[in-house]
């Protein structure tokens, strides 16, 4: 765009002029994959996903078949990761035990992020008593440490997998709500939101169409972090004996059931633990990369964000219970 073309020069048939870029997100993804960061993140994520979802097809043994090798047998040619407490083949359990925790963690993360984002945006944009109400609810839920919250919910409501998702997801929601509210407070103060609001567009539409799309960055970062936390909390619950059921081969549960053998066959915990960690690292790194390439802001902002590898953490770690309230005008629009 070195020169402004004259209107005549661009006298193309109307239909040919695209007004919106429909698959813009694809190009964002594409761009983020071009960065080393994006490639590493995506690579790690896909590696783990491949193990989790294709693994069951390649498992040499049934994951629950007992006595394949001796209890906590070390690695051998027919069981390269050795055996677990019941002599089951660790490799087969690893290959079969990924998809469940990944699906559950993803669902819990999605639940937490969606509920949290809705609450956060509504609180920020609508302000007033609703903001107060939402933030008080958030405070109350936050007052239960995440693990304790999930533990209580599960022991009250029963030990079922969908409840595990609900419990973990719900415990994420208030944290997401706080972060998103802080970010949304900033966005709702932007002129482009006001520009639409003063035309009388309904608040719900403004929130959905103007505010939310501009929260992709914190949402991506949050989703990545929440994904790690989902896995950590689910594994923690498994450790305490809640959530997953034996004999499910499940990375989170495997770490727990094999820890007696940590000194004899450490692979039985190391392998699933590492896969979970790699997955979390991959997802976070990729979220980070997407964030960077999705930033449609002017150069200076982009430069300052790129310069600081840790910056998204700021938004995430900070509860940002900023007293900065939207000004009265926006609240009452």
């Amino acid at each position, binding site marked *: 765009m070195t020169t402004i073309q004259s209107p005549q020069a661009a006298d193309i048939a109307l239909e040919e002029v695209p007004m919106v870029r429909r698959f813009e997100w694809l190009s964002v993804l594409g761009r983020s994959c071009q960065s080393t960061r994006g490639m590493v993140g995506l690579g790690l994520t896909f590696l783990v996903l491949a193990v989790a979802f294709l693994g069951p097809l390649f498992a040499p043994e049934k994951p629950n078949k007992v006595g394949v090798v001796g209890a906590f047998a070390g690695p051998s040619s027919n069981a390269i990761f050795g055996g677990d407490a*019941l002599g089951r083949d660790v490799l087969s359990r690893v290959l079969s035990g990924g998809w469940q925790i990944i699906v559950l963690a993803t669902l819990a993360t999605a639940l937490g992020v969606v509920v949290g984002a809705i609450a956060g945006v509504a609180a920020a944009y609508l302000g007033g008593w609703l903001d107060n109400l939402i933030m008080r609810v958030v405070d109350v839920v936050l007052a239960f440490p995440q693990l304790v919250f999930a533990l209580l919910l599960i022991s009250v409501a029963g030990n079922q997998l969908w409840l595990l998702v609900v419990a973990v997801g719900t415990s994420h929601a208030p944290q997401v709500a706080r972060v998103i509210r802080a970010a949304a407070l900033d966005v709702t103060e932007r002129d482009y939101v006001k520009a639409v609001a003063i035309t009388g567009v309904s608040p719900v539409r403004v929130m959905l169409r103007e505010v939310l799309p501009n929260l992709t960055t914190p949402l991506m970062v949050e989703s990545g972090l929440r994904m790690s936390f989902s896995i950590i909390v689910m594994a923690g619950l498994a450790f305490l004996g809640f959530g997953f*059921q034996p004999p499910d081969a499940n990375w989170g549960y495997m770490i727990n059931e094999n820890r007696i053998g*940590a000194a004899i066959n450490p692979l039985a915990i190391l392998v699933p633990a590492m896969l979970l960690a790699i997955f979390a690292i991959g997802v976070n790194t990729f979220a980070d990369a997407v964030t960077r390439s999705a930033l449609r802001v002017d150069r200076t902002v982009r430069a300052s964000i790129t310069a600081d590898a840790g910056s998204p953490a700021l938004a995430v770690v900070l509860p940002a219970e900023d007293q900065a309230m939207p000004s009265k005008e926006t609240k009452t629009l």
Partner: protein
Amino acid sequence: DSSAGAGTTTSTSSPVKGGTLRAGLTGGGAADTLDAALPLNNIDFARGGALYNPLIGMDNDAHGVKALADLIEPSKDAMSWTIRLKDGLTFHNGKPVTADDVLFTLNRVVSNHYGGSSALTQIDMKNAQKVDKLTVKLPCFTPFSILDQALYANAYYLGIVPTDYDPNNPVGTGPFKFESFTPGQQSVFTANRDYWDTAAHVDSLVISNYTDETAQLNALQAQQVDLVNQLSAASVGVARAAGQVLVSKGGGSTPIVMRCDKPPFNDVRVRQALRLVVNRAQLNSVIFEGNATVGNDVFGLWDPDYDTSIPQREQDIDQAKSLLRQAGQSDLKITLVVGDISYGAVQTAQVFADQAKLAGVTVEIQKVTVTDFFGSNFLSWDMSIDAWYYTPYLAMASYTTTPGAPYPETHFSDEKYNSLYQQAIATTDEGARRELSHQMQLIDHNQGGYIIPQFAASIDAAGKSVGGLTASKTGLSFGNFDFKSLWVA
């Protein structure tokens, strides 16, 4: 005297006097108690064993051996029992042990419906009498010739306490005296120098609660404890490297319990099929590294009347399938409820589920917390895994499978069985009783609601400096929690 053990005995040097013995045991929690009548778990048993003595207990061969009682004898018609205390016994506070204390103890248990009352269901405590200073007479409602069995099988609920017993400052006759106690954490005891039997080698005993096996093993490796109990077979290697391992071929078990009054288990063919599905050797080797004793779906392994002539049931998938087909349950789906109530329970469930697959049976495991397991559904789960310490056969039947039993978890009911039982407990003729017992066992073996794949071995470990370890067939750790016989070099 409890040194007549038959299990593995570890190499020992000569006893050393003094020092502190530190035991790190699992299975306890905030509900821990020192009350002689209220023990709930293994670790309560350990503490009870230190503080109290029963009238009659078990030796390391799992045979009855008189403790405080000098005489324990039924009348000819088995309608009453006479129990006489040893002379010169005293409580920790110096007070002599009398017949009043015995009556007080038994009355306390029965009137409060405490655990030990299951041994005394046939005893008419209201009419129990003191005969003399050391002797009591216990009349029975119906003939009951196996009170001695019932008492020693329930010995841990029946420690004799004084008439002014205060559970918060417990006084007993045991080899150790109470020093301090924090539920869920730790209890400390000192040796009772005036013990009526061989006094303890060590000066004090500390029993700590451990949350899990990993912590126990870590502590053993780091020499923070001298004794740990209830290890899994997989830990033997680690434990051996850190000290000595004591394997006790116990008579306790983690049976699979089927409700015989509810479908699909009300069909005896289903019960038989599921028993045939079990590969007992594999269970033994996977869970106990071959240390357990293969079971034959009948209780009472060490009972002199245990019928070893019943052919051992082996895995037979074809037969199981055909039985299921006959019962119209070719693709049976069942839920097995299990809690971490004892080593082997959850493991048995997993291995069983894997084996059942061979016969086309889908076993879904529902793992619940210990509290939930013993919660409101206890005794009415359709299929579950319970845990029992070694109990002689007839006593076990009186607890579980006969009319009026306190733990009718199988809901098994068979008239012939019941009448055999009535005859058995009415006769004091041991030969006749054996015969009746054998017939009952055969019914259990063929039709009962229990699958008893094995009698668990219990694996304990001790630090290198511990001496005096003796295995016990009861399956309880350290030679029946016989802390007084251990020493620390």
